[in-house]
C-alpha cells in the first residue's frame, strides 16, 4: 500500500509525520519479510512486438532475437509468451522467404527452427496483452496462451515498436497508455503473479512508458528518455529495410558472450549501454526494486533456474510385498477406471451455474420457463410472420375508428 505524504496545516503535524514514517517503515519491512519467504520457482518471458507491415521489419527481428536468446539460456517455450504480427517471413516483399535476419551478414536465421508464436497477426491487441498480464481470459483459452506464473516467478517483459510520450502504438490502430500498463502491473502484484518483474522497452521515448509504475519488485529499463528517439542500428541493403534497433543490438551483443552457467550481474548489463553508440540515453529505474543490481545475476530473468531438492528415500510400503501375489481382476479395475473417468467429465461443469439456479426468485423462474417453452416451438418464424400480418387489419380498424 502506498502511503502518500500529505501536507497538513493543523497542529500535531509532527506527530502525524512521525506516525506516517512509522507506517511507511512497517509496511516496507513487512513486505520485505513476505518477499524473502517466497522462493524463486521459475522464469517467464513475455515478448511483444507491437508493429506490423514490412517497413517495421526491425521490430520483429528484435523480438525474435530476444526470443532466441532467452531460449538458449534455458527458458522453455511453455514459459514464453510471444506476441508478433508475424508478417515478415512470408511477406511478398521478402527477398529471402521464410527467413528473418537481424544482421546484414545474414549469419543467423531467426525464423529457422522451433519458433512458437502464441499470439500472431491481429491477435496482438492491447486487450489481449492486458489479458495475458492480468490473467483474465475466457475459459476456452488454451494453456499455451496464458501466463501461468505463480508467486515465485520472475517475469521478463520486453516490448518493442513505435512509441511516444506515455504511450505505445499497437499495430497502427490502438494505443497502450502508461497508466494502463501500471494498472495491469498493480493487479498482477495484488494477485501475486510475480515475484520480480523486469520491463525492457525499445521504442522512442521509452522511459515514459513505465513512469507511472508503483508496484514493488519491478525493475524497468527503456532505450531512450522523454524527448529522445531510439534509432535503428543499420540498414541491410539486400533486404531493403533496417534489420535491428540499436538498443536490442547491444543487448544481444552482451548475451552472445554468456552461456547458461555464467553469472554476470544485471548492473553490468545496464551499464554496458553507451549513449554515444545508442544515440539515446538508456534510462532505468530501480526505485521499486529492493535488491542491489550488482548482486543480481542476469540469469535471474534471462535464464532458467530450477530449485531442486534431492529425494532421500523411496516410500516403501508393505503393499509392495503383496502385489506380486495377487493382481486385481481386470474387469473390476476397468470399471473403477471408467467410474473415475465418468466422475471427471462431470466435474468440468461450472459450479456457479448450479448455484445460481437454486437461488432464483419466482419471477425469474417463470421467465426462464417461458423462455424454455419458446425455444421449444419449432416453427417460430411462421409465428412471427402471422403476427406481422395481423398487424395490418388492426391498423386499418383503428384508423377507421378514430375518424
Amino acid at each position, binding site marked *: 500500500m502506498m502511503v502518500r505524504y500529505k501536507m497538513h496545516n493543523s497542529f500535531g503535524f509532527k506527530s502525524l509525520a512521525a506516525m506516517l514514517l512509522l507506517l511507511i517503515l512497517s509496511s516496507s519491512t513487512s513486505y520485505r519479510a513476505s518477499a524473502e519467504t517466497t522462493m524463486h520457482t521459475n522464469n517467464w518471458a513475455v515478448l511483444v512486438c507491437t508493429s506490423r507491415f514490412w517497413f517495421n521489419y526491425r521490430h520483429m527481428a528484435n523480438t525474435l532475437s530476444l526470443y532466441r536468446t532467452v531460449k538458449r539460456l*534455458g527458458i522453455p*517455450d511453455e514459459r514464453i509468451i510471444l506476441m508478433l504480427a508475424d508478417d515478415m517471413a512470408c511477406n511478398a516483399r521478402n527477398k529471402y522467404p521464410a527467413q528473418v535476419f537481424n544482421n546484414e551478414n545474414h549469419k543467423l536465421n531467426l525464423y529457422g527452427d522451433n519458433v512458437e508464436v502464441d499470439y500472431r497477426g491481429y491477435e496482438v491487441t492491447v486487450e489481449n496483452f*492486458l489479458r495475458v498480464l492480468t490473467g483474465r481470459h475466457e475459459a476456452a483459452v488454451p494453456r499455451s496462451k*496464458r501466463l501461468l506464473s505463480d508467486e*515465485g516467478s520472475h517475469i521478463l517483459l520486453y516490448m518493442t515498436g513505435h512509441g511516444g510520450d506515455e504511450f505505445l502504438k499497437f499495430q497502427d490502430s490502438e494505443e497502450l497508455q502508461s497508466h494502463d500498463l501500471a494498472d495491469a502491473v498493480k493487479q498482477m502484484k495484488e*494477485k501475486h503473479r510475480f515475484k520480480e518483474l523486469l520491463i525492457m522497452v525499445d521504442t522512442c521515448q521509452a522511459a515514459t512508458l513505465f513512469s507511472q509504475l508503483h508496484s514493488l519488485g519491478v525493475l524497468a529499463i527503456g532505450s531512450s528518455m522523454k524527448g529522445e528517439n531510439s534509432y535503428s542500428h543499420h540498414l541491410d541493403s539486400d533486404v531493403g529495410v533496417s534489420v535491428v534497433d540499436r538498443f536490442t543490438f547491444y543487448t544481444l551483443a552482451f548475451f552472445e558472450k554468456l552461456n547458461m552457467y555464467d553469472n554476470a550481474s544485471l548492473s553490468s548489463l545496464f551499464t554496458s549501454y553507451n549513449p554515444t553508440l545508442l544515440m539515446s540515453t538508456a534510462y532505468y529505474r530501480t526505485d521499486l526494486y529492493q535488491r542491489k543490481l550488482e548482486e543480481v545475476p542476469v540469469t535471474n530473468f534471462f535464464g532458467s533456474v530450477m*530449485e531442486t*531438492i534431492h529425494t532421500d528415500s523411496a*516410500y516403501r510400503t508393505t503393499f509392495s510385498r503383496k502385489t506380486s501375489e495377487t493382481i*486385481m481382476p481386470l474387469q473390476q479395475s476397468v470399471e473403477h477406471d471408467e467410474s473415475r473417468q465418468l466422475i471427471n467429465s462431470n466435474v468440468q461443469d461450472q459450479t456457479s451455474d448450479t448455484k445460481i439456479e437454486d437461488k432464483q426468485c419466482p419471477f425469474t423462474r417463470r421467465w426462464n420457463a417461458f423462455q424454455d417453452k419458446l425455444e421449444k416451438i419449432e416453427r417460430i418464424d411462421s409465428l412471427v410472420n402471422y403476427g406481422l400480418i395481423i398487424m395490418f387489419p388492426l391498423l386499418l380498424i383503428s384508423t377507421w375508428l378514430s375518424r
Partner: protein
Amino acid sequence: MSEISPEVPDNRQDAPSHVDPNSTRITKPGVKRLVLTLSVLFSLVLGFPFLWKSVEIYRSSLPFGEISEMESNPSLSFPCRFQAVFINFNSNPSPNHLQLSILDKITELTSNSSQCGACANDLALSVTVDSISSCTQTHPTDNSNYYRCGAISAVDFDFSNDDDDGVDELLESVLGVKNVYSVVVVNGGGEGIRAVVGKYRHAWIVGSVEEEEEESVLVSRVAEIFVKMFVNGGTENGLIHGEFMPVGADRRIVLSFNLLNAEPNDWVYDWDFQRVDETLLAPIIKVLGPIANISVESQVLYHTPKSSFSYWDEKWKSYIFSTKDLPFFVNSNEWHLDTSIAAGGRSKILQFVVYVPSAKECPLSLLLPTGEISKTNGFISPMWGGVVVWNPPGCLNSETNHPSRHTMSREDLQAVFEVFMGQFRQLFGLKSNNLYIGASGTYHLLPSGKGFTEWELDVLSRQFACFNLHSCATTLGSLSRLVQSLPRMIIMDEIGKLVQFSLEAAKLAQSNASLGDNESSAGQARSLAEDAFFHPSIMSISYYSFEHCFAIYSPFFLPVSMHVLLAALREWKRYKQEKAKYTAWKAKVKVES
C-alpha cells in the same frame, strides 16, 4: 383550420388614431405559443433524470464491509483432542499429574509457532493409567470417544519381534475414533525406548521404565508426538505460503508421467502404465479426493537428452552428475512435457519423469555433497514435479549396436514408482522417509499403502483449508480494492453472486473447522473467489468513461434541446414585450377616461 383573429373595427374606429403598434397593443397577448414551448421544455427537463438513470453504469453491489472483515481475520481454529494411555506402570503415577506435565510440554512446544491449524485455542487431553491392579483416568468433558479401561493389556505387545503392523491393526480396532489422537505408552520389553507412529491416528512407545526421572522423558516424547507429528505433520515450519500447495485454483491436479528415452538408437524402453495406474495410483487418488481432484496422464518420449554434463568415475564405476548439475538437468527445449489436453487453464500440472540415459552415459548416478551415491537417483523441483534416473540393467556390459525394444520389468517399475511416491509426498511438504528425528528421540513412521497415513491426511487437509481460506480472503480483498479504485467499471451480476457464494462458503468453512469437521468448503471458497477475480469482463480499458458517454448522447439531445431552449426564451421575451405593450395601453386608456 387556422383561426383568424376576429376583426375589432369598433375599437379601431373609436380609438384615437395615434395608436403606435410598436409600443402599445389593444388586445391581451396570447399565451398559446408560450404554453406550448414551455411545456416542451418542461417535459425535456422532466425526462432528464430518467435519461441519467438509464445511462448509469451497472455495478452489482459487493459487500465491501464483509470482505474487509474476512480479510483481517482469515483464520481457522481446529479443535485438538488427545489422549494418552499408560499401560503396565506398576509405580502407578497419578493421571492428573501426568496430564499437567504433558500439557505443559505441549504448550512449550507450540508457543513459538503461531501458524494456522495449531491447537492454541481448543486443546483437550485425557490421560489413563491402566495396570493389572487398577485403572485411573482424568475426566474429560465427553466420555464417549475415549479409552475404556482394560481394552489393551501389555500382553498384546509382543516384544520379541517387531510386528508393527499387527500392533497397529490391534490398536486401531480398540482406539479407532475420528478426531482423537492417541499415544499408548507401554512399560515392558527390552532395553531402551522405541517409538512408532502408526498408519491411523495413534502411536505407541514401548520401553522399560522403572525410575521416576525417566517419566519426564516419556512425557516429553508423548508431547513431541502430539505436537510434531499429529499437529505439524512431521515438518518443521508452518506452511501458509503457496510454496508447497501444488493444487490449482480449480482444485485440480494433473499428474503427468513421462518416460524419456534419451537415445532411442541405443535402446527403447516402454512401460505398462495401465497396470501401475490401476494398482498403485488409484488408491492414492481416491484417498486424496477431499483435498484435490487428481487426474493422471502418461506419455513416452524419444530423443530427449539432458542438458547437463556427466563424467566417468572409476571408483563408482558409473557416470556421475552432482547436485550442482541438478538445476540444469531438465532440458526444457527438447523435453516437450507440457502437452496435456486434460488440464484446464487453472489446473496445476505436476510432471514425473523417468529418464533412461543413453549408452554413452550409462549407468548414470547422482553424487551427493556428502560424497555418497544417491539411493534413489531422483530429485524434485517444488511446484514442478520430480525426476528419477533409471539405468537399464546390464548397460555397462552391453554391446548392442542396434536399437532394441524392451519393456520395463514389473519390479523395476515398482521401484521407480516407490520413488515417485516419495517425491509426491515431498511435493506436498511431507518427508519421504520413514524416520523422524526429533528433539527427544527418533520415531519410526509406518508407511501406508495408500501413500498417506490418516494423520498425514488430516494434517494436509487442515493445511489446505488454511491456505485456501487465506487465499480466498486476499483474493476478495484485492477484488474489492480494484473495484473501488475504478468507479466507472461495469460489474456484472455474476461477479456479485460469485463473491457472495464465496463469502458464504468461507464462513461455513470457519464454522465447520471449529467443530472439527473437515470438508472442502474452504477450497470452494477459494475457487469461487478466483472465478470472481479472474472474470473476463473486468478489463480496465473498457470502463465507461465520461467522455465516451458524452460523445454518444450529445448528438441526439444537444441540437434539439438548444432549439427548444431558444424557442422558449424567445417566446417568453415576446410575451413580456406584448404584455408590457398591453399594460401601457390600458394605463393610457385609464388615464384618458
